[in-house]
């Protein structure tokens, strides 16, 4: 994923500008959102109108077509949100490793707003 490739490999990791715990919180919330809303496509698929086709041929087939397109869209969207979450975790991992490499516990609250530390 592009985000994954860009952020962890970036040369300018400003440790004081990232709150790793908060970043993981954002990632967790995005991942949870993707999981919860994964139920939506299943709901659409479960609502069947196949047996009403006799009185509503055009609308019924349009509904099946629209539903299938929406399920594809929602599946893709869910995957996208989930991957964003994974990418943010990867960013947090990278910053954490940078901290370990530096041998000091660096946290924004402890250092202050000035970006004085660069890997």
């Amino acid at each position: 994923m592009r985000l994954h490739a860009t952020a962890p490999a970036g040369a300018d990791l400003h440790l004081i500008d990232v709150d790793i715990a908060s970043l993981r919180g954002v990632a967790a919330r995005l991942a949870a959102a993707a999981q919860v809303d994964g139920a939506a496509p299943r709901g659409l698929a479960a609502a069947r109108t196949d047996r009403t086709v006799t009185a509503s041929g055009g609308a019924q087939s349009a509904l099946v077509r629209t539903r299938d397109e929406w399920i594809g869209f929602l599946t893709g969207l869910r995957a996208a949100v989930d991957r964003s979450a994974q990418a943010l975790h990867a960013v947090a991992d990278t910053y954490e490793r940078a901290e370990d490499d530096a041998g000091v516990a660096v946290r924004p609250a402890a250092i202050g707003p000035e970006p004085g530390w660069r890997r």
Partner: protein
Amino acid sequence: MSTLTYATRREPGSTDEQGPAAWASLAGVQRLRDARPDDWHRAAAAWSTLAEQLTRLHERIDGSATELDAAWAAGSGTGAARACVAAQRIAVRDAQSPARQIAAALTEHGYALAALRRLAHQDLPHTERVLLLAQVRALDERTRATLLANRPPPAPAVLRERVGLRTDVARAVVQAQTSLSPQQVRAWWDSLTQAQRDRVLADDADVVGWLDGIPAVDRDRANRTLLAAGLDRLSAAEADLVHMLDRLRLPAILAPTLLLPVLGVLELRLARVRAQVAGLQAVRTCLERLGPRALLLGIDPGTGVSDGRAIVALSDPDHARHTAVLVPGVDTDLGDTPGELDPDRPSARRCRRADSGAGRCEPRLLAGLRRATGH
């Protein structure tokens, strides 16, 4: 020409109940009577739920974007992350309105269909039946247009580019895998994104469900989809056939000379459908009894004349050290599945003994395969 006779009141001396047009309008009205508005209301409820979920998802992503600003203030990646999350927020925002429009259209369709259906139960002359059916067609067209106008919004380019939202895999590409080796199939499967795999498992389950090289857990997912869809389809067919038979047995529907052959054909068809339903239900019961470790590696309901087929693994063969394969005899069918895979059967006990003798604690796999009779 058949001697179909509908139990409909006719005006004395009227000729409007005769001729092909009159029969067509009678048939159309009968279909309208059989329509099920509640199904449309249920579909509307599902779309309404989707719209609510999209609203919640939008709120969550919105909140996450704000938190992201605070958590990751600078760096070369933060701009990319913000753009990505913002694109997802826009996609979700733009999807809410079409989902609501569809829910509203389906609700309206359900109510309108119910009203027209009530009229269809009245004893109408041909001319009024024609008018009624014209209203049905107009309603149908109106709903169709609304549905097609509210297809999902195109994903923003940034979203497609960054996270690979493109999920479609041509069916021809999937089918082409059937001529490749399992190793080649596995390499192809590994090259797909998760979204693409999800799409293939949903759209081409009939192909990948039997495809060697696809991970067993994914085959299981495809085949359980097929199993559920097959039961839905066959149960609906069974209900339709029962309904048709009930109607035909009413007095004055068909002349007796025609009734018996038609009943015979339909009853035979019903028996075949019921045999298929029973076979699939037996497989489902078996899977439920075996629990989450069991995997369905192939399912074919058969035709009602030929036996169906199923492959059930008692645990994941991709991680098995040993496998034992049980192929039941030609006189078995899908309905025998629970008995064939009973852990107390001698074959299962022998398998456990052999595995224990080899220093293993339990059999990793016991597969059941039903072949069509005579093969």
